[in-house]
């Protein structure tokens, strides 16, 4: 058995080479998954998400089956035991039948003009007086202390689980992840998913645009303290951030709301020689102009549902691209069709080495992949030499 440290160092070398547009002979596979691991493991979602021992077992088996080089996440998601400990709630909906998790499009701001100001000026008070009572309506003066005490213990258990699975994947398998060393603030994402909901945020983009812009401008996206120049030698990349809420924005909205954060990220990575993994949910059609301004050799851009060839054409001169493997073919195609498509994909987008093989959407539902096809695809890429 090869020493996991050697495996990891080789993966780091290839990962950084691809981001830097340096000579590369291999291709890194990036696993972008969600609940499909539960389906693939023949487990029940509501059980698997609550059993950390089972999660670790499933994660080990999943990795040994597909041997991805890098994961977007080591299944830190769905920490439902903490929600259970506080007595449920959280506006969370989980379905065992279709392997889905969703949250209600929640609006916690009953007095939006003042609530935006409260969020801007006293976030802790906003969370306590606005968000918690809306998300957990069953909490009372009497039951809250016991529920919060239990939830704190479960948060500790969760943090221990996350640390343990991270250590296993690192020390036993030499696998990379793209989690950030460096936190990034993007309040618009939280505004939609946690405070105001899609519907009301969409209205606010017209009626309270100034409040949203104040919120964005008050938050510096990246910390500038204690920074060192150069990419972390122990990781493939230094920063990972996701654009999820951008899909409701027009190009002009994006320019005002996201571009300042993206520009700061560009300048930061250029100045401090960092590597960032940018996951763009949905399509990036409306924001190509902004993506093309990235400093060359610092970004991996993963656009889920774009045609990877068009994506390569648009941003490939400055950024490495990730994605390209069609979940539709993984589900409905034969092994031969998957390999044929993969060969064409590599010819079209991996010619300069600045490519990471991943799926064109997060593996979530049963019809997102078939096991034998995913094994064939990951095996093939592992043995490819450019």
């Amino acid at each position, binding site marked *: 058995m090869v020493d996991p440290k050697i495996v990891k160092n080789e993966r780091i070398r290839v990962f950084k080479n691809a981001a830097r547009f340096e000579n590369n002979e291999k291709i890194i596979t990036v696993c972008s998954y969600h609940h499909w691991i539960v389906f693939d493991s023949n487990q029940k979602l509501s059980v698997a998400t609550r059993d950390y021992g089972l999660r670790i077992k499933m994660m080990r088996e999943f990795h040994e089956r597909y041997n991805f080089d890098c994961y977007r996440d080591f299944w830190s*998601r*769905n*920490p*439902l035991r*903490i*929600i259970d400990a*506080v007595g449920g709630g*959280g*506006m*969370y909906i989980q379905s065992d039948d279709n392997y889905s*998790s*969703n*949250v*209600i499009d*929640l*609006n*916690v701001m*009953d007095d939006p003009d003042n609530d935006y100001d409260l969020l801007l000026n006293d976030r*802790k*008070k906003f*969370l*306590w*007086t606005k*968000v*918690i*009572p*809306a*998300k*957990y*309506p*069953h*909490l*009372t*003066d009497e039951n*809250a*202390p*016991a529920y*919060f*005490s239990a*939830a*704190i*213990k479960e*948060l*500790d258990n969760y943090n221990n689980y996350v640390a343990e699975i991270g250590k296993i994947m690192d020390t036993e398998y030499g696998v990379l992840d793209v989690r950030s060393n460096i936190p990034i603030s993007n309040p618009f994402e*939280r505004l939609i*998913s*946690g405070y105001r909901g899609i519907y009301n945020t969409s209205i606010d983009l017209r009626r309270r645009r100034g409040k949203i812009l104040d919120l964005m401008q008050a938050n510096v996206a990246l910390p500038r303290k204690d920074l060192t120049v150069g990419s972390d030698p122990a990781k493939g990349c230094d920063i990972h951030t996701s654009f999820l809420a951008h899909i409701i924005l027009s190009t002009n909205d994006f320019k005002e709301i996201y571009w300042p954060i993206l520009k700061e990220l560009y300048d930061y990575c250029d100045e401090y020689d960092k590597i960032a993994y940018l996951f763009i949910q949905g399509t990036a059609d409306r924001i190509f102009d902004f993506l093309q301004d990235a400093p060359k050799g610092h970004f991996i851009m993963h656009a889920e549902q774009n045609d990877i060839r068009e994506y390569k054409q648009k941003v490939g001169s400055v950024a490495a691209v990730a994605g390209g493997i069609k979940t539709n073919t993984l589900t409905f195609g034969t092994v031969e069709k998957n390999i044929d498509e993969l060969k064409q994909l590599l010819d079209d987008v991996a010619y300069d080495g600045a490519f990471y093989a991943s799926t064109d959407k997060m593996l979530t539902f049963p019809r997102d992949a078939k096991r034998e096809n995913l094994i064939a695809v990951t095996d093939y890429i592992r043995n490819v030499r450019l």
Partner: protein
Amino acid sequence: MQNRSNAKIFEDMQGYENVLMQLDGLDEDKKTDSFLAVVEFLAGGTI
């Protein structure tokens, strides 16, 4: 608006302090930070 708790503890930050004082079975040194961490967590996303 969805239903929301009408507990008095959520009317202001005094309620926050009152709950903090009543937390049970936790390390005293870490209690303040742990409480804020769990409030942040519960207020955030869970998917």
